[in-house]
């Protein structure tokens, strides 16, 4: 069955698309909702965990500070430090005292801060202490963060200062803020604590952080009066390296001396989100596949009857009113099929009735025409015969007789002509195809019609130069063309231009006959080829019907285009060759 669906999307395809999109959309919505709720849940839990870690961190720092203060206090009271202060010990004796006091750093300095003995850098004896301790802090009992220079570079330490021997010297001691402090926090998996120290160092439980500058925005944020800040840091180009931080400043006298940072790795969260997304994609893809399969199965069940209906409809459209659709179900589609079958049956009945009515109408029309055509000559015949009867006794009988017989003969000729035309139309012979040059036929017809001088009409020929030879019946073609030329001439009683044009196409030759007359209305155009329809006062309405018949017998097409006041153009498309009459139907030569 030939179907001309072209590139139009079928109902089945639409159904498949809709079902697939619905499945995918539903999965996407669910996935998105789960992802968002998961993220929110993670954020809430992480925030609590980070705050707890920071609290633990602060407590640990406070405990360490207390411990440092106690150790420095003990060191200040030790005999060894007293000896150092008195100048009675080796230059590096502070190392021994620092070790026994459990301090990483110990400087015994004179009141002017000249180092007497340094535990971590013994070679600096005689130099000024440069731990960057504020002048007030040298006489403070607090514990504070100080940056302590060492041969390997400066490090931050929890530091305390105490006087020795009644102030004859000072001892500054400290413990390094080492990763051990952060390790001792015992953070949960996926979390970590960092300590940022100015100017830009950060340490974690595993040691120094490689890219402390990535914390810069957080550090900047904690410098605000609000103090606390949150933010995320992506350490590498991999998103799973992202870490969410809660930052808390450590200040002394208004100066930022450090920042505590509690971080939670976002890798688990991102991993879960990715997993959800992956699952969503898998489910979505599976859903689409299943949706396609189900949709295929469903649409097969739905569209097969619809396709049968469509095929039936196409058959009906093609004129086969006997087409019926099998009713396979009792649902809406089945009801539709039943309705279709009822409709075709009714159509068939209506067509039969219409044909019947048409035949009756045609006969009536024929009768009306015949009556009309025959009535016109009959009336002069009657008048002439009556005149002839009245003048039988008169002296002018001979003259009347002669005129009357002339008139009678003329009218009988008319009758004969009318009957001949009807006879010709009824007896339209089958065309006898031979190879003819359409241009030659055009020239012949024009020459015949312009033998008489037509001063008001200008004939114009625009003929294709070559290749205008086609298979056609030259007599029928000449007759059809002659009818069109006569029509065109009749359409220009006031004169004008008659244009005849031939043009070559792949499929054959196009012939156009145009006049510059008044043109036709749309309704006239539509009814123009109806037999016995005419716009002329004395036309039979068979001329164009004959033309159409000839064109049709040549397997061509005829069309008319016209616009009011701009003339009318008849276009005839004729194939170059005619089908072989012996060939099976459907094949062309």
């Amino acid at each position, binding site marked *: 069955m030939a179907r001309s669906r072209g590139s139009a999307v079928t109902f089945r395809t639409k159904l498949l698309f809709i079902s697939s999109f619905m499945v995918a959309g539903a999965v996407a919505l669910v996935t998105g909702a789960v992802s968002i709720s998961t993220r929110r849940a993670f954020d809430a839990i992480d925030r609590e965990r980070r705050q707890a870690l920071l609290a633990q961190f602060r407590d640990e720092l406070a405990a360490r500070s207390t411990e440092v203060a106690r150790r420095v206090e003990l060191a200040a009271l030790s005999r060894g430090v007293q000896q150092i202060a008195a100048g009675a010990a080796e*230059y*590096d004796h502070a190392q021994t005292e620092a070790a026994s006091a459990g301090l990483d750093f110990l400087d015994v300095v004179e009141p002017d801060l000249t180092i007497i003995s340094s535990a971590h*850098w*013994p*070679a*600096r*004896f*005689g*130099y000024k202490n440069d731990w960057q301790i504020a002048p007030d802090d040298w006489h403070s009992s607090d514990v504070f963060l100080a940056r302590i220079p060492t*041969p390997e570079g400066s490090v931050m330490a929890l530091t305390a200062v105490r006087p020795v021997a009644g102030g004859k010297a000072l001892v500054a001691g400290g413990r390094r803020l080492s990763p051990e402090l952060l390790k001792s926090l015992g953070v949960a998996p996926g979390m970590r604590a960092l300590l940022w120290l100015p100017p830009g160092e950060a340490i974690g439980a595993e040691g120094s952080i490689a890219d402390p500058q990535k914390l810069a925005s957080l550090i900047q944020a904690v410098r605000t009066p609000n103090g606390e800040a949150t933010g995320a840091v992506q350490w590498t180009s991999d998103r799973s390296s992202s870490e969410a931080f809660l930052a808390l400043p450590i200040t002394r006298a208004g100066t930022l001396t450090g920042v505590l940072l509690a971080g939670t790795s976002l890798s688990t969260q991102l991993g879960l989100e990715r997993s959800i997304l992956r699952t969503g994609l898998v489910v979505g893809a599976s859903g689409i596949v299943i949706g396609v399969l189900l949709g295929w199965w469903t649409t097969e069940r739905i569209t097969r009857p619809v396709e049968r209906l469509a095929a039936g409809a196409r058959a009906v459209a093609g004129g086969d009113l006997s087409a019926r659709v099998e009713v396979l179900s009792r649902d809406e589609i089945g009801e539709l099929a039943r309705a279709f079958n009822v409709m075709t049956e009714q159509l068939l009945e209506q067509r039969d009735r219409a044909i019947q009515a048409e035949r009756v109408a045609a006969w009536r029309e024929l009768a009306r025409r015949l009556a009309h055509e025959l009535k016109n000559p009959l009336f002069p015949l009657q008048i002439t015969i009556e005149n002839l009867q009245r003048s039988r006794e008169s002296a002018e009988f001979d003259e009347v007789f002669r005129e009357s017989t002339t008139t009678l003969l003329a009218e009988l000729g008319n009758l004969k002509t009318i009957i001949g035309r009807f006879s010709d139309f009824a007896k339209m012979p089958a065309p006898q195809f031979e190879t003819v040059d359409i241009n030659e036929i055009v020239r012949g017809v024009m020459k015949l019609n312009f033998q008489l001088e037509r001063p008001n009409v200008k004939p114009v020929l625009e003929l294709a130069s070559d290749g205008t030879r086609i298979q056609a019946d030259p007599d029928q073609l000449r007759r059809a063309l002659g009818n069109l030329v006569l029509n065109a001439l009749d359409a220009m009683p006031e004169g004008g231009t008659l244009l005849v044009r031939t043009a070559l196409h792949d499929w054959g030759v196009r012939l156009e006959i145009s006049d510059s007359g008044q043109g036709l209305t749309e309704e006239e155009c539509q009814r123009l080829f109806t037999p016995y329809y005419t716009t002329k006062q004395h036309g039979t309405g068979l001329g164009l019907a004959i033309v159409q018949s000839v064109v049709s017998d040549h397997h061509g097409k005829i069309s008319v285009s016209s616009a009011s006041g701009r003339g009318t153009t008849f276009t005839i498309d004729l194939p170059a060759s005619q089908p072989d009459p012996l060939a099976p139907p459907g094949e062309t030569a």
Partner: protein
Amino acid sequence: MGRTALRWIAAGNAILALAVALEAAHRPRYGGELRVEMRAAIAGLDPGAVSEDPVALGAQRQWMPLVFETLVRLDDHGRPQPWLATSWTHETARKIWIFQVRKNVKLHDGSTWSPASGSITIPDDRPIEHILRELAGARSAIVVKAEDGSLLGTGPFRIARWDAGKSATLVAHDQYWGGRPFLDSISIQMGRSLADQASDFQIGKADAVEIAARDLRAPKQRGTTIATTPPMDTVALQFDGGRVPAQLRQALALSIDRASIHNVLLQKQGEISGALLPKWLTGYSFLFPAERNLVRAKQLVPAPLSLTFGYDRQDAAIRPIAERVAVNASEAGITLRQGTGAADVQLVRLPVTAGDPWLALQDLTALLKAASVPPAASSYENEKALMESSGVIPLFHLPRGWMLSSKVKNWPRFEDVWLDPGAAP
């Protein structure tokens, strides 16, 4: 009265017995093994070999005379004295010197060392002082190669076992021309750190161990016998001349606060110096400047710079000095950092290997791989030239210190050292 007299007699006997015992205690006794430990890892005592390791070279030159002797030997004042040669004379033109050798000198295998005609002829037209100085040097020691390839000497000890760089045993040469030494043997443990040596000394595993100059005071206060030499080691900065320009070398030298180091780190042991050889050896070391001038040092450093710095971290005397030098240098804008590979500047300990400036400079020249010292030039000029050519800036001269157990007597003349078994441990 009688009882009183008896008491006096008894007391007198006791005093006499004590005196006899004391006399016996101070009289040298034969026998025993002296156990010595040292940091140096000496490959061997071959006088012709010059070790590239300054510490090993210094130790080798110290111990070599026990095995190998020279024709003449320098006394404590640096004057040549007859040793294996008893006298020397020259032929008329003073171009050939004839050294009469000591008779009955036995080599370590028991054979007699007897040059042909009982003398050694040396054709040399230099002044006799130069010739004698050279003959007193370690490289001029008398060495006889035995059939088995071993080296035989004439010294008071012979090598019984030598495990290069690790340990050695020297035993007394019974037929030594100067008389058998008191000790039966000397056991030497090499490559021992000062801490290990101190530990072994404390538990009685060693009779004589080295001690850093800065650590001399504490054992002294505890009553331990300490023996020190005159300054025999030169602590110096040695530059890689190709990489460090003279201006920076000078800046670094001027930045160093030698006085603080001497007073605090060295506990005033040794002496501050800008010379390679110590004052006791030359008398002119003061001609080499050793004062700090930080302002000038800063002027000589156009911009802060960094140099790689090397030193022997196992040397307890050197390490604190190096750390202090780094601190001083940083004040002048020079960062000294420890690096891998060849350092731009090293803090080294250079040994004074002889009691004669020329001989000592000869060894230093070999050690520093500098151009040979022309013997005719003055020691001052030789020393100055050597410092400039080798890129060395001396800082201090340090004595060598030994902790001795109480039974060690007559240290450090090994041929005269004896062990007192009755001494308190």
